């Protein structure tokens, strides 16, 4: 190693170098490099035209987002309305929006798990345990309703954390762990319910009110719609202004106005519809609040970013210093929590905790809702709003077919067909995305 024979003068040079700050920009190195822009680069133009061009390019590249499911919903509405004019009645739509909340809550938890690229098969049974736990505590043992509610939900979180522990810490496949959970918690629920098999919830219990309470004042529905529209516009506008101030590309005002207008039309149409029947359902308000909060957590917090990172590449996440085990356990705990919440809504809908809770097609419907809504089964892609869209599709089909008096076997077959169609769309768009370099 000849580097040891350094002269004192060179040492001096080193000190002078240390004092000289590293150049912040490298104009010498950059000259000629920055000016020559690769003509193949797709640069999004500012303004509304740029937004439209970007949108078209995304569609062509197979980045369909929520478009297939929105189209699907429209088709469902048209078909069932032509078959039975009661389908789009305020009563039917209001009932659908209350009935979907239980499955929708479970699907929200499933979205979290799917973002990791994993699966949770136990959510159906866990939802049953939660309903049974509440009924046993509240009705049989006379525990305070609110305390029983908290215990039931905390129980779901704990059960989810146990699954997460076996998956993340022990390293057992999530599929097998949650399959075991499906059986175990089903047995646990049956054990809890005991010989009677069914515990009826009194109409004045907190859980029963979850799906029976409506804000009858017309101002409630309109007020909520107005608040949603205003908050959306203001946050979008402020965000855009902040981006402009920081000199990074921002959304043009025209785009914000367009988005706000679409939201306003949907929100006020829904408000008018609810007010024609019993008013704004409490269940839907809770569901929407959960969706807003979870969406915020996933997209605007470090925790959410870590979940997406894990869904993209576990190794990259680990190297970035993310505690993979902790995130995985917490995500399964979230799935368990939402399963428990969903279980309470389902128990509320039938005003009882019975042996059939959490069985049958509930699990499949919850997973299907998440996937139909546009959450990728391959991880790292999706939003909790997908759960809302997906569960709307599934519940609409169920209610539409029930209006026609079509029996359960046909309902199963049609729901299965819709799920297959969704997965096919997901796979095809993924292929298109790959060829377009966006997967």
């Amino acid at each position, binding site marked *: 190693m000849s*580097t040891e024979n350094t002269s004192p003068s060179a040492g001096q*040079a080193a000190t002078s170098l240390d004092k000289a700050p590293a150049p912040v920009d*490298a104009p010498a*190195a950059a000259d000629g490099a920055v000016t020559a822009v690769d003509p193949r680069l797709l640069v999004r133009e500012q303004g509304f035209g740029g937004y439209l061009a970007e949108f078209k390019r995304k569609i062509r590249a197979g980045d369909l987002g929520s478009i297939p499911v929105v189209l699907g919903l429209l088709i469902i509405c048209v078909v069932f309305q032509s078959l039975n004019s009661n389908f789009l009645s305020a009563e039917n739509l209001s009932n659908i929006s209350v009935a979907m909340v239980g499955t929708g809550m479970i699907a929200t938890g499933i979205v979290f798990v799917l973002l990791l690229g994993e699966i949770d098969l136990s959510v159906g049974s866990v939802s049953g345990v939660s309903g049974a736990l509440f009924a046993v505590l509240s009705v049989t043992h006379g525990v305070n309703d609110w305390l029983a509610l908290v215990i039931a939900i905390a129980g779901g979180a704990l059960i989810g954390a146990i699954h997460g522990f076996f998956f993340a810490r022990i390293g057992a496949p999530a599929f097998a762990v949650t399959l075991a959970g499906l059986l175990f918690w089903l047995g646990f629920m049956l054990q809890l319910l005991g010989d009677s098999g069914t515990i009826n919830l009194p109409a004045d219990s907190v859980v029963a009110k979850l799906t029976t309470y409506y804000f009858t004042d017309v101002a409630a529905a309109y007020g909520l719609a107005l608040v949603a529209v205003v908050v959306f516009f203001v946050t979008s506008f402020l965000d855009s202004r902040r981006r402009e101030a920081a000199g*990074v*590309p921002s959304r043009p005002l025209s785009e914000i106005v367009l988005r706000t207008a679409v939201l306003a039309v949907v929100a006020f149409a829904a408000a008018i519809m609810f007010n024609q029947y019993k008013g704004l359902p409490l269940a839907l308000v809770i569901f929407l609040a959960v969706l807003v909060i979870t969406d915020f957590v996933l997209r605007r*917090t470090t925790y959410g*970013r870590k979940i997406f990172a894990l869904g993209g590449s576990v190794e990259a996440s680990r190297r970035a210093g993310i505690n993979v085990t902790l995130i995985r356990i917490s995500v399964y705990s979230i799935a368990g929590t939402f399963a428990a919440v969903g279980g309470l809504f389902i128990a509320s809908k039938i005003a009882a905790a019975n042996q059939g809770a959490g069985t049958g097609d509930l699990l499949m419907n919850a997973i299907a809702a998440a996937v139909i809504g546009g959450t990728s089964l391959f991880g790292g892609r999706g939003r909790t709003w997908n759960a809302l869209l997906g569960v709307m599709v599934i519940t609409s089909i169920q209610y539409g077919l029930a209006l026609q008096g079509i029996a359960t076997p046909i309902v199963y077959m049609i729901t299965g067909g819709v799920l297959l169609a969704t997965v096919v769309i997901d796979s095809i768009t993924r292929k298109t995305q790959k060829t377009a370099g966006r997967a």
Partner: protein
Amino acid sequence: MPDGTTSAAVPRTVPPHRVAGSLRSLLLDLRASPRRGIPAGQAAKEMVHVTATPVLALRGVSKRFGAVQALTDVELEVHSGEVVALVGDNGAGKSTLVKTIAGVHPIDDGVIEWEGRPVSITRPHDAQTLGIATVYQDLALCDNIDVVGNLFLGRELRSWGVLNEVEMERRSRELLTTLSIRIPSVRIPIASLSGGQRQTVAIARSMLGEPKLVILDEPTAALGVEQTAQVLDLVERLRERGLAVLLISHNMADVKAVADKVAVLRLGSNNGVFDVASTSQEEIIAAITGATDNAVTRRQSRTVEVQK
């Protein structure tokens, strides 16, 4: 064992104006130096000697895995503003050496000196704290997250607990512009980028921690001609910013293009440190393959010893 550096270590006089100048101006000076009649080799040597204390120095580092002696008494020095290429055949111990520096495998024997004082690096975190950034061969990026998200993955900027996307995006653009990295948008997922662009993003990401030493593990291994050129440009820019760079590569053309020194590993121990400008590619390859270790060279070295 021929030591390329010894042969190149000609007595030299350092012009005072050059000593006083910053490394940056010195580098620019050197670019133009052949015209002033300074041999390229000597010019490169001056660059090597600009800093007295190496940023990183390995002294007699050894590492053993069970029955395998992966590294034996390895010596290595990397200075600020210097690109040192680490070359060697498959199984020569390059990756092991890098992992000892990065804290993945703690060393069994020897000393790692950081800016002149001995340090112990037992975890990747230790290395990061010292200012060592490692860009691994398999890219540590998440395909589904956009460029900004990947650059700040694990060290997101927050305001009131919420991700500060605007500031992260602004800083990302600044960083990418500084490094002259050109990508279509900082808001597209990594999946949309070409291999070369991904590699440059990975390297840019290592810069966010403001490291003093950047280790690049075969950064051009899977890249095409243009992408390789981009990455090599980036390596030069890192050097111009006064960083020490340890570059692992199998590609002699890349090494000749950007490195100042070449450290050759063979069977887990040093097989010479060469000055790139004054050494031919054949000599380096001979050191890598061990072609120099034959009867003729052994006899030569014996005669030298006898003469002493």
